[in-house]
């Protein structure tokens, strides 16, 4: 019933043209057409993807030769991956199930997941075989090689050591460990001879090493030392231990299993790594590696050693250092960093896109207006000088263009550095500020994906919640842009602020307000202080309000506006929504309260509208030329609840639309026989939500649209306090053939472009679904009016077309969130999808109506223009001559 797809993904442009022509009549027959796909030559032009694995728990190197390239890691995201140790590139990756089911207890060279022993092919990452191990409190495992061939697996449990055959998982022997109550056995290791070493530690006391015979499990020897010993690495016949010491002389021992080391807290500038011989305990000469620590990075957390024999039979080694900020650094002797991977980006929590600053010359021009006038003559001089600098810059630009044009294509490099950052013509390049769960902040160039700055916040609790707020954009030169990160401890509710410049990542030296009480809510007001920073209000648990920045100017403005500042608080554990109004003394009063009984339903999510959203058209023109006005309430909240009763017949999903100022319930709908997880988008005058239908066992999309009717109550301004009539609510539901993981709507500069929904699917694809398909006014029966309005006839099933996947084959594993930002071009919306991977692209929901095509024929147009111009000139001349001649007659 819809026209067939017009463009096939991954075809050359030329071949597509014919398809376009042949299907033109198809378009003319039907009145709508959406074709959106990527041409092969466009792949990677406007988009990029970065793949991550997460925080490394285990790492292994392939073999003990200098030339080996592969290394293997297993991470806290249940991912087993292989890197190229020369470049740090990902060779292959296995994304296992999330949650404890897929968690990897330990990684051996062949890999082992929990109770399942799996053997992986190290070249391509294919699964060789899988065997079930018996249960027990698992501690460690390692391979045991006899005469250089791996035959056995040693498994260390809390109180026993067992040996298994690698070929089939059968047990060879099992031995109880001595003193298993007092000693925490942590590691097991075999150097390849007839012995298996077990390493145990009595906390803060000593270390025990027990050597077992491989054949029958007899204890050969037992050593107790009074020092912390480290992980072994072996090469040939030498077994070595790597020890990392901080430069300030405090001995710090590191081991691949970090559980038995207490966190250290002292400032570090660099660390030295030394190699010790295990047999003699002596330090090997010339093995020191100096590991410089980044100023804004984390401290070393774990160390993995790859030792090998050099040609002269001395021991060489490389070290993989994992720092607290989840960065992996690979170091070669003597202290050269081969590569670094920022694995913190595998867990992005929130992000914002910030406009890049103007270039120096542009900024100077702008700055002219910002300053106070100082006389006519100096101003003229200043204007002239800035014009001259502009001219200079333009000439330099021209020269650069000319110079580069002569060079062959490949040599031109456009390296992005923090110094050369400047806004482009259409504001398509932006700074992505990403906040990760580890507490590390990143500034990433949206065009290339290169990390321009990083800042590690220490002392961030692992369960902290983050909220990133842009307080001042780049538009207020010479004031630098300012972002504020609100870090809230989920247990105590105490919050701290981190204020920084989003372009350079530097921390601002602004006096922060003291926040002694837990913070319930933060809200960004449109009020700006004298430095053009928006005011952030923080509400604590006693409903007292703290303003940041809290200058005299701000407080005065707040006092004036207090009676018109309303905010809401939601306590989902009590099902309580309440509204407050600010008083002049910055205390608050409760003005409304809505209570959803928790014994019936619980609030799962609340969403308002995005503050930077623009709606271009106030209404929709209907078939009979009348206008249906949208109900555009900026204070509207969409509250989604789920029933506490999970029985498939009685379960329901509730959708409440509540005015955030007056607490008025605008609409209240119940989706019967449905349960979560509910994903929803709230924008303009519509809410789209997705849920699981328990009766039909399928995913369904529902769309709610609000209209004021054919007349506007007050067309000039919207006030929640003065809208007595409830809006008309239209709703329609569709079947969606796939579960989804996240959803977001596109956003453009002025809101003229039609909207698309960006839907993240579990497969890693991102679907760009036209909002047109989610329109509750889609008619059951096609009429003249609905055809006039371009409404698609109702079909219960929502199609998924492969050409709607905006990320073609660049799947984003475990997509967690999608962020959209407008660009300077009305047609273009910037999209960042993040999860395990990060994918950035641009989407054109209404196609590129404001951009000339690549194959635009400039020559033809300009020649026609010139020809016409000359023709006019000549004919004018001829007409003049003719007139003159006529006058003489």
């Amino acid at each position, binding site marked *: 019933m819809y026209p067939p797809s017009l463009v096939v993904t991954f075809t050359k442009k030329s071949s597509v043209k014919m398809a376009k022509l042949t299907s033109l009549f198809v378009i003319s027959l039907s009145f709508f057409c959406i074709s959106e796909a990527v041409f092969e030559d466009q792949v990677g032009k406007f988009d990029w993807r970065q793949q991550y694995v997460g925080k490394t728990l285990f790492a292994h190197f392939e073999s003990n030769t200098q030339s080996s390239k592969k290394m293997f890691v297993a991470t806290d995201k249940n991912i087993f991956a292989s890197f190229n140790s020369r470049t740090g590139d990902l060779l292959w990756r296995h994304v296992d199930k999330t949650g404890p089911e897929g968690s990897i207890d330990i990684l051996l060279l062949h890999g082992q997941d929990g109770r399942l022993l799996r053997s992986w092919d190290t070249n391509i990452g294919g699964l060789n075989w899988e065997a079930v191990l018996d249960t027990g409190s698992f501690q460690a495992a390692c391979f045991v090689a006899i005469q250089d061939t791996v035959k056995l697996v040693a498994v260390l449990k809390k109180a026993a050591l067992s040996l298994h055959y690698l070929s089939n998982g059968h047990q060879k022997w099992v031995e109880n460990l001595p003193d298993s109550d007092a000693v925490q056995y942590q590691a097991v290791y075999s150097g390849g001879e007839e012995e298996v070493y077990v390493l145990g530690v009595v906390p803060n006391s000593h270390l025990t090493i027990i050597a077992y015979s491989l054949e029958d499990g007899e204890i050969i020897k037992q050593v107790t030392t009074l020092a912390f010993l480290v992980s072994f690495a072996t090469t040939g016949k030498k077994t070595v231990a790597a020890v990392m010491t901080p430069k300030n002389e405090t001995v710090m021992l590191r081991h691949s299993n970090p559980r038995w080391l207490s966190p250290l807290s002292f400032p570090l500038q660099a660390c030295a790594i030394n190699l010790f011989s295990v047999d003699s305990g002596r330090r090997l000469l010339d093995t020191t590696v100096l590991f410089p620590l980044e100023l804004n990075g984390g401290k070393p957390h774990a160390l993995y050693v790859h030792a090998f024999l050099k040609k002269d039979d001395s021991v060489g080694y490389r070290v993989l250092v994992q720092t607290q900020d989840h960065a992996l650094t690979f170091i070669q002797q003597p202290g050269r960093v081969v590569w670094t991977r920022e694995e913190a980006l595998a867990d992005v929590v929130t992000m914002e896109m910030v406009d890049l600053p103007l270039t120096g010359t542009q900024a100077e021009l702008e700055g002219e207006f910002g300053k106070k006038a100082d006389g006519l003559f100096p101003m003229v001089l200043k204007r002239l000088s800035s014009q001259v600098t502009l001219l200079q810059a333009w000439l330099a630009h021209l020269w650069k263009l000319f110079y580069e044009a002569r060079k062959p294509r490949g040599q031109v490099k456009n390296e992005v550095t923090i110094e050369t950052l400047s806004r482009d013509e259409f504001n398509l390049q932006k700074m992505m500020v990403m906040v990760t769960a580890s507490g590390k902040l990143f500034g990433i160039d949206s065009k290339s994906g290169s990390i321009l700055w990083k800042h590690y916040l220490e002392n961030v609790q692992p369960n902290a919640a983050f909220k990133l707020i842009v307080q001042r954009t780049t538009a207020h030169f010479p004031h630098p842009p300012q972002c504020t990160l609100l870090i809230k401890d989920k247990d105590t509710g105490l919050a701290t602020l981190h204020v920084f410049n989003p372009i350079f990542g530097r921390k601002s030296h602004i006096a922060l307000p003291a926040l002694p009480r837990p913070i319930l809510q933060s809200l960004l007001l449109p009020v700006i202080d004298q430095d053009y920073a928006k005011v952030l209000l923080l509400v604590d648990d006693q409903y007292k309000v703290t303003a940041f920045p809290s200058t005299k100017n701000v407080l005065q403005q707040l006092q004036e506006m207090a009676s018109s500042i309303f905010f809401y608080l939601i306590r989902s554990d009590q099902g309580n929504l309440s509204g407050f109004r600010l008083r002049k003394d910055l205390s608050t009063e409760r003005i409304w309260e809505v209570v959803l*009984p928790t014994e019936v339903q619980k609030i799962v999510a609340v969403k308002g509208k995005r503050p930077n959203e623009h709606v271009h058209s106030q209404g929709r023109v209907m078939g009979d030329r009348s206008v249906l006005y949208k109900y555009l309430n900026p204070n509207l909240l969409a509250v989604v609840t789920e029933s506490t009763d999970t029985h498939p017949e009685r379960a329901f999903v509730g959708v409440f639309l509540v005015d955030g100022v007056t607490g008025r*319930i605008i609409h*209240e*709908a119940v989706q019967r026989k449905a349960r979560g997880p509910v994903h929803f988008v709230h924008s303009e005058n519509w809410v789209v939500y997705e849920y699981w239908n328990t009766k039909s066992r399928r995913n369904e999309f529902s769309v709610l649209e609000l209209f004021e009717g054919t007349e506007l109550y007050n067309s000039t301004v919207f006030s929640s306090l003065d809208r007595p009539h409830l809006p*008309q609510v239209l709703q329609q539901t569709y079947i969606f053939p796939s579960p989804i993981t996240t959803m977001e709507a596109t956003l453009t500069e002025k809101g003229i472009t039609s909207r698309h929904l960006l839907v993240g699917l579990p497969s890693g694809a991102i679907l760009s679904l036209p909002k047109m398909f989610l329109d509750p006014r889609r008619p059951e029966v096609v009429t003249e009016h609905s055809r006039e309005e371009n409404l698609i006839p109702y079909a219960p*099933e929502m199609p998924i077309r492969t050409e709607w996947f905006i990320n073609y084959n660049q799947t984003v594993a475990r997509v967690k969130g999608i962020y959209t930002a407008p660009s300077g071009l009305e047609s273009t919306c910037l999209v960042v999808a993040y999860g395990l991977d990060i994918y950035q692209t641009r989407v054109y929901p209404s196609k590129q109506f404001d951009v000339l095509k690549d194959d635009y024929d400039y020559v033809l147009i300009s020649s026609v223009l010139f020809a016409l111009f000359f023709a006019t000139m000549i004919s004018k001349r001829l007409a003049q001559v003719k007139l003159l001649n006529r006058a003489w007659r």
Partner: protein
Amino acid sequence: MASVPRSFLLLSIIPTILILCADFACCNTGRKTGDGLDTDFSGFSVPLEHSFQVDDVSRFRMRGALQLRGGRETSVSLSQSQLSEEDRNTLKEVAAVDGLYKIRVPRVSLTDRQTERQMDGYLTAFVRACSLVESHLSDVITLHTDVSGYLIGVSIVTIPGACRGTEVEDEVDLEAFNTTLTIIAPTNAPQPETALFIERMDIEHEKRGKPQEQKSFFAKYWYLILGGAIFLMASSSAQPSAGGAEEQQS
């Protein structure tokens, strides 16, 4: 009892755009307090309280009593007294300083009479006092219930809702409330309309199916072909020598 409020609804000029599940609406002027309340009524009564203070500190006082009746046909009616002289003056003063007029009702369940008293807390809503004064105390109070009949929210708006700063001279205008009361239960969100769609598809299929069943090309245009053939035969037999040979050569 039921017919009286319904006639009031008809009389009331307030256009209610969308009362999706308004099972019952009642418009009761304060002058009629006590009338007909003592009739057989299986429901129960909860207080409706209001608060308006110049210093905006909530001090709730009785405004009226809401008669609620649960069950299949939930209904609500309100009996309220007139504003006293003192209240009228306070309300005007509050309106002058742009204060708020707040109302509250206790949290109750319309269906489950056992738990009705156990729930604590109130549902609160507000309106600007000036708009209440300027609308001459004509307000619309809406009670919202959830699926199981608990009251979850209350809202109050005045019609008209704007504050234009017009003075209300006549004291009589501020004596009695002109209240429209509605109770709204959640609407059921629609399911995907598969049955209707399939039905429509079938109809379309039938429409389209009929001509497709029809005969082949020859069966369809046999008369044209036959006519053409006869015409050709006739023309060739009529002019056996005139054009036949020449045409073959050309």
